[in-house]
């Protein structure tokens, strides 16, 4: 690993205890993100991608594994130990309705990061907040309004402003545009890219929308039932996905091209995602995989780097035995 790796997780595991049993929401995941890099994380609902993002910046405490941030392992830091790091590890949430307290004005919301960490006096904070609002493309007049008085796109800009307030080095973006109108999505995507270019922050960009991921990410990790099944540079993954699940996922992208333009060949998957409480033995995807073999039920495939595809990691018996 080179030195500009900002954050690195090893064997990260997070369990959810539900009435029906224990869900291995994040199950032994390795990942790292470099300075200025965007790692796209895709997967279907319930695959654990949100939990992974929240655990990485320690909104959850992992049950197992390490999170190296800087030269420390923050996996089991106490809340007190985490506090000075909080401003550096930030998150943008999916729903800008839920992520802003309806009873607090924009100024109050954006002043919080600075008052928590004792930055500036009252007058200085006023000015910092004004600058922050302008940085995300809004007029500083917005500061006296309340979240319900502004549009969804504007709310998401405010949520982004709060996340970048303390100049974070790692930002987890959990479906930041999927609750927004199409015409507004582009504004927010451009804003996030612009901010990243100037700050050099590492993004973990979580989305179920492959087109958005394909545009935003440098590298893409594909998650299925708590595990990463494939992790590769974007162009490689886009052109030639190796894992059958990735193939299915990417062949399902609906591109707004004229109907006469040939489409990717559909890789069919059967049925629905199985229960996360009781996942299939061996390879978790085998119950839906069109290429399932006997070995897939017996042994869990490991995440390996194929010889001809440096930088790509895939966990599939079919690919790894070839």
């Amino acid at each position, binding site marked *: 690993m080179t030195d500009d790796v900002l954050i690195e997780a090893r064997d990260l595991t997070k369990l959810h205890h539900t009435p029906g049993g224990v869900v291995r929401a994040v199950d032994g995941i390795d990942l790292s993100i470099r300075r200025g890099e965007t790692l796209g994380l895709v997967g279907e*609902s319930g695959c654990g991608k949100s939990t992974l993002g929240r655990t990485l910046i320690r909104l959850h405490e992992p049950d197992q594994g390490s999170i190296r941030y800087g030269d420390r392992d923050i996996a089991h830091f106490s809340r007190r130990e985490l506090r000075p790091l909080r401003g550096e590890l930030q998150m943008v949430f999916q729903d800008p309705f839920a992520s802003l307290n309806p009873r607090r004005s924009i100024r109050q919301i954006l002043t919080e990061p600075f008052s928590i960490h004792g930055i500036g006096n009252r007058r200085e904070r006023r000015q910092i907040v004004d600058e922050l609002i302008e940085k995300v493309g809004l007029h500083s007049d917005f500061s006296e309004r309340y979240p319900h008085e502004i549009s969804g796109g504007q709310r998401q800009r405010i949520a982004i402003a709060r996340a970048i307030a303390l100049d974070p080095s790692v930002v987890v973006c959990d479906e930041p545009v999927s609750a927004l109108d199409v015409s507004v999505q582009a504004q927010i995507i451009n804003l996030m890219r612009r901010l990243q270019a100037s700050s050099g922050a590492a993004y973990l960009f979580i989305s179920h929308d492959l087109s958005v991921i394909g545009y935003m990410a440098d590298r893409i990790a594909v998650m299925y039932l708590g595990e990463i099944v494939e992790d590769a540079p974007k162009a490689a993954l*886009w052109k030639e996905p190796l894992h059958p699940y990735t193939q299915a996922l990417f062949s399902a992208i609906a591109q707004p091209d004229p109907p006469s333009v040939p489409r990717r060949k559909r890789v069919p998957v059967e*049925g629905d995602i199985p229960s996360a409480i009781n996942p299939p033995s061996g390879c978790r995807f085998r119950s839906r995989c069109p290429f399932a073999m006997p070995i897939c039920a017996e042994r869990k495939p490991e995440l390996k780097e194929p010889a001809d595809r440096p930088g790509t990691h895939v966990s599939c018996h079919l690919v790894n035995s070839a």
Partner: protein
Amino acid sequence: MTTSSSVLSVRGLRTEFLSSEKTWFPVVNHVDLEVAPGETLAVVGESGCGKSMLAHSVLRLLPKKISRLQGGEVLLGGRDLTTLSDEKMRQVRGNDISMVFQEPMTSLNPLMTVGNQIAESILEHEDISTADATRRSVELMDLVGISEPAVRAHHYPFQLSGGLRQRIVIAIALACKPKVLIADEPTTALDVTIQAQVLRLIDDLKTEIGMGVILITHDLGVVAEWAQRVMIMYAGRKVEEADAETFFQGPAHPYSQALLGSVPRPDAQIDSGDFAPLVEIPGTVPPLNKLGPGCAFADRCAHRTAGCTQAVPDFIEVAPGRGVACINAGDLS
């Protein structure tokens, strides 16, 4: 599109809502549309453009006190649905026109097995025995691609996944082989792989029983893949209409162009390596009760001219099923 081949024609439909200031404002404004049997018409727009209200107006499912139909006709099988009595309209719904909603959980009764819910909707419209209806409901579940339908018929909605639930909703909608199916964002709440399965299902059934489909969506990718014709709505009005090929080759209205341009297109970008910023449409969708005198899109339009704010542009039909509402459209293509 000729009228004789249409299964559903909507002409000059106008629906108004009551604002909090107690004034009426249009949410669907002079909309025409035609759907032929075996054809999918996509109605595309952002939230608040009136696309859902259009569907609800056609089915007359609008909230009574705060909305009213203010002109236009909805022709289905020679009848104007806007003039039917409430009782007659109830028979039309589910029988001749059905609707599939976005959120499958809220459109199913949580306390009734899914088999019974399908049977119920058959019994509502047909005079057959309960046993026959139950048998039909299992057949329908098989038709919409549910494995082990006889077992699953005894399940309650909460025991099924989102994809299966949406299939149940579709089964209910298809129970009486409607002539028209209106699908309002049927796959927005579903995962990508399931989304393709559900849209494939609607497409297959459409061909099989020869119904017309109105697919309401905001996802242009879905439109390109599954619709034969496209209608773009903005602020309650139809701003462009075309067949899918023409539309995706080159949309004519500046809003359609911007909408198409703002979608990330990784395929092309990965090939070229050029990840230039996406085309942004500045501003936000205007509230429908506060529209000015001109084109509703003028404020956000890159091609605005002086004439745009004078009057609402007419929808000019250049050929049957092909038209645009923009005074500058001729100069843009």
